């Protein structure tokens, strides 16, 4: 049944994209670093395999585009909620064309496509946190007010609140949903501040799981048939303290995913896929 806000975390499909060789030198990053391309590709393959084989999602994999060094981070190119996909206008000029392939792929999945054509608007999917009840949009280096307004227009059913992002690249650089009504949040001051704002702006009450490392707060939550609550999170090797926090989640299938290379170019776990819940046609 259609039904508003049903089934948070239910996904049937995932959209991913390959890692271009240009990522190592041309991908945007906040801190200059060296990226091991092979390593990054191996990690990405493992990620995709996890989604496909272990979690049983229908994975749509787009080929990498060498002219788009950041193209692996498909999350920024589209925001999908329910049957609607908002094709964004990424804040970084170099990434604007990433949306073309993504749009086609989503269209093929029968989603209602809404495009952000306003040239004054920018929005990265990484700044969009959907909680199941509402949206929070981080106003960051990549996302502006106008972008948020267009998102609000695209998803009229939901409240859309803006949250200033003081640190990090995206809103989801320090937070993500860990389940229905559960926000995983980093412990840095900017992260905590953002959480406070989100709590104040919301009519709903969220639980929070605070982890010591901001980057570790970026997780992927799913609620899958036969598997229940599933959480993809960082590995113990990367953030040992934070991993301990996830172990507090009872009845969760916890899956550590290594993301050590992509993170160097500011790519977190959620960045690498667009998750879709395609309803069986009634």
């Amino acid at each position, binding site marked *: *049944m259609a039904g508003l*806000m049903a089934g948070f975390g239910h996904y049937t499909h995932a959209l991913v994209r390959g890692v271009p060789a240009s990522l190592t030198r041309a991908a945007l990053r906040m801190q200059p670093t060296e990226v091991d391309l092979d390593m990054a590709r191996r990690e990405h393959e493992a990620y995709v395999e996890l989604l496909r084989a272990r979690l049983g999602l229908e994975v749509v994999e787009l080929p990498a585009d060498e002219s788009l060094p950041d193209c692996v981070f498909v999350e920024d190119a589209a925001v999908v909620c329910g049957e609607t996909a908002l094709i964004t206008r990424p804040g970084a000029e170099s990434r604007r064309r990433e949306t073309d392939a993504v749009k086609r792929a989503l269209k093929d999945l029968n989603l209602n496509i809404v495009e952000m054509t306003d040239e004054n608007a920018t929005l990265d999917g990484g700044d969009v946190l959907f909680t199941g009840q509402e949206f929070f949009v981080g106003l960051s280096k990549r996302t502006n007010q106008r972008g948020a307004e267009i998102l*609000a227009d695209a998803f009229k*059913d939901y409240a859309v*609140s803006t949250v200033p992002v003081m640190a990090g690249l995206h809103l989801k650089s320090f937070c993500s949903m860990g389940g229905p009504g559960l926000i995983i949040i980093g412990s840095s001051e900017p992260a905590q501040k953002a959480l406070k704002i989100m709590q*104040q702006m919301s009519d*709903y*009450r969220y639980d929070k799981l605070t982890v010591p490392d901001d980057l570790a707060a970026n997780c992927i939550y799913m609620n899958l048939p036969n598997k229940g609550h599933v959480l993809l999170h960082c590995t113990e090797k990367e953030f040992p303290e934070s991993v301990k926090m996830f172990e507090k989640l009872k009845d969760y299938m916890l899956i550590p995913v290594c993301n050590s290379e992509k993170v160097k170019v500011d790519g977190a776990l959620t960045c690498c896929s667009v998750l879709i819940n395609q309803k069986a046609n*009634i």
Partner: protein
Amino acid sequence: MTTEAGSKTEVKEKAEESAAGPDQSEQAKQEHQEGENAVREEKEGKGISRYLPTWFKKPKSQSQTSPTKEVQPTEEPASKATKEEEGPSPDVNGHAEEVEEKEEVKSEQVKETEAETHSNTSADTEPAKGERVEEVEEQSPEEAKETKEGEGAEEEKKEGQVEAEGNGQTSVFQSPLRVVRKTKMKVIVCHVTLLDGTDFTCEVEKRAKGQFLFFKVCEHLNLLEKDYFGLIYKDNHEQKCWLDPTKEIKRQIRSNNWQFTFNVKFYPPDPSLLTEDITRYLLCLQLREDVASGRLPCSFVTHALLGSYTLQAEFGDYEPDQPRPLDFINQLTFAPNQNKEMEEKILELHKSHRGMTPAQADLQFLENAKKLSMYGVDLHHAKDSEGVDIMLGVCANGLLVYKDRLRINRFAWPKILKISYKRNNFYIKIRPGETEQFESTVGFKLQNHRSAKRLWKVCVENHSFFRLNAPEPPNKARFLTLGSKFRYSGRTQAQTRLASSLIDRPAPSFDRTSSKRISRSLDGAPVISVTAAGRDGAENGRDPHLELHSDSKVSVSQTEAASAENTISETKEPEKMTEIEIEETVVIQEVSKATKAGLVTVPPSPPPPPAAAAPPAEQETQQQEVKVQEEVVTVEETQQRKQESVSSESESEEEAEYHPDVPVSLCQTQIPEEKEEEEEEEEEEDVEPEKEVEEQVSPPVALPALAEVSHPEDETSQEGVCRKEDADENKEQEHETEESTDDVMVTPDEAPDSPLLSEETEKTAPSEEKEPRVNGEALLVEVDPRPQVICCSEPPVVKTEMVTISDTFAAQKTEIATKEVPIVHTETKTITYEAAQLDGNGDGEPGVLMTAQTITSESLCTTTTTHITKTLKGGLSETRIEKRIVITGDCDIDHDQALAQAIKEAKEQHPDMSVTRVVVHKETELAEEED
């Protein structure tokens, strides 16, 4: 013309009553009769009557004309038979009946005649009472006493019968109908557009109150759960306004356009908790309209889904054999941007609802609609402090701030300490967060003062409805509310839920309007009860207590537009016409108080210099005070305390405050509202010339005891109601409002720890700090923000002071004199001293009222009303005595002395009790008040 007549008559009535006042016995009898009538009604009534609020019933029984069908049955079955008889029924009352053409009416008349025989006396007298009550609130406390008593009795009786009402409002409501009778008024035809788009026409007497019409409509609709609904009219500026049930229609609409629309006023957060399908159906109709018009935005998918449920509810199962349903579908409007694609989708989804009853489909519709983020959000255009266009949304959970489509801020009710408006500025005072030390005030600028006031009222009503257990305690309400007119008068959601849970009538059958082929009435349809349990936003951990202070000094400038222009200078002496200058300078401020952190929580913390007075007081004071004062105030404030950012409030023409946190249990909300402009204005208009004269004369007609704020020395309130409570119980709700219109009242309260206090203190304290500006120095001086121990030795008493001065129409006064426009000016000053006990925040639990009694005594120029309530809270029984002393006279009365005397007496009489609160309310009427 009518108005005048009416007013006169009322006056007379008052006089009569006052005369009669002494004999309570008579009144009691009358009431008794009423009670009986009511009982009958209930018995005979379809059963509906049981659930009706007392006030509802009463009117019916007594007023011949009352629209309610129930009434008929009540009196005698025979009446029905009589319907046929058309002859002008003999009426007891005379006026109303003439008008009626309706059969029902006729029948009723017959009944009434009979009925009246029984209750003639009551009918006559009562009306007066009803009005009085209102009047009392505003004007003369003396009369109020009587009414109270009488009502009290009535209430008791009725309460026995009717469940869940518990409001003191009853009395207020009753009056309208009766009043109508006496004065033979013209009948006017009202057109009400119902939710299904049909027109309902009915006649009401010209002076009928809003509720009369509303009840007629509800009756027509067969609606019992009516508290979620209301009537809207358009004012002269084409703005939609809610018709206040407690006020005369004529005075509100101010035009000859008696057109109304019936709408949902409070959107139930969980429609599945509604008892009857018919209520849900009406809510669906409203939402369909909201959705189709775009007021309630939703996505394509949701439009389609909601549309499909609408089809299912109105047309039943999808039938394949039916030729192209699209043909009719495109005649229905589901969305603002409806297109073929959407219609296809709607039809597709419709197929999947096969087998669903209309009631089930409605419920599904609502279950989806309620999740929409804008569900139940009432939007108002405003500008923020930087002049940026924003929207303020009032809803069940609080106040939302939108910029374009984005939510940029949100203030949950529990976070809001005070809601006020001044001119076209709307302010909310925010409770400091965990890490913050100071409260802050956020201001918004609205288009004009009318919109500010409208927003304020909506906030007050929504807060009351969704957050309070009960509107105001009946008893105290009167005292408290003397000066204020506006507050939410209906039942709260909690009450209406309780009441509707008792509905046991068989599901009424009704037709879903647009259904063309199937009218499946829901009768019999299984009621799907989806229980949604706690729907309340969790965030509010605190009990919603509201203190509503609306002191509106509504000096209503005659024209709202004019507001800015008006200069109101208030003279310290009430008598003189005060001119109010309205400065628009500071409109929006966000003030954070730097000064004393402690203030927030602890009331006792001495607020800065004396200047800090209770918040409400400030404003009010301002009004009264002369311009000079205002100016001074600001200056002082700035100097004295930096804390507050000086707001322009000092000069308020119309302002009102509402303090949303009131301990629930107490429920005593103080909603001092000032007279609403409208009313006032109207009143003024209506008031007629006579009053004007007086005004011109300047000397206040009646000077209630005045505590002049200006004199610092008068620390204690000079006159007023003194309330004493046992020190032990603290929790009390002390917040009563202090504004009394006419008279000064001193209310010493004892409840030391009462949560209220704490709240109040908080409120007051903060307000004081921040808003000191309002009052001129004097106020400040007198009232030290610091809790002072009231003379009595008793328990640690901290004085909280709230100085409220409200001038009504002060601004206008001057002008009036010149112009001759009849304006009523009322200046009100209220000073409250409270004991400081604060712990009580925690105690939110409502106490159980054990007993309540009111005693009144009068002497030459003073009237003393003693109100004793015993409440059981937790294990403690608490006795609270409120004494209200009204001193009427000219300015020459030595108020200070009077106050001192009153306090002294109070102590002597109840040595074992402590004085927790002293409220001095001084009211000067420049013009006449509405009588």
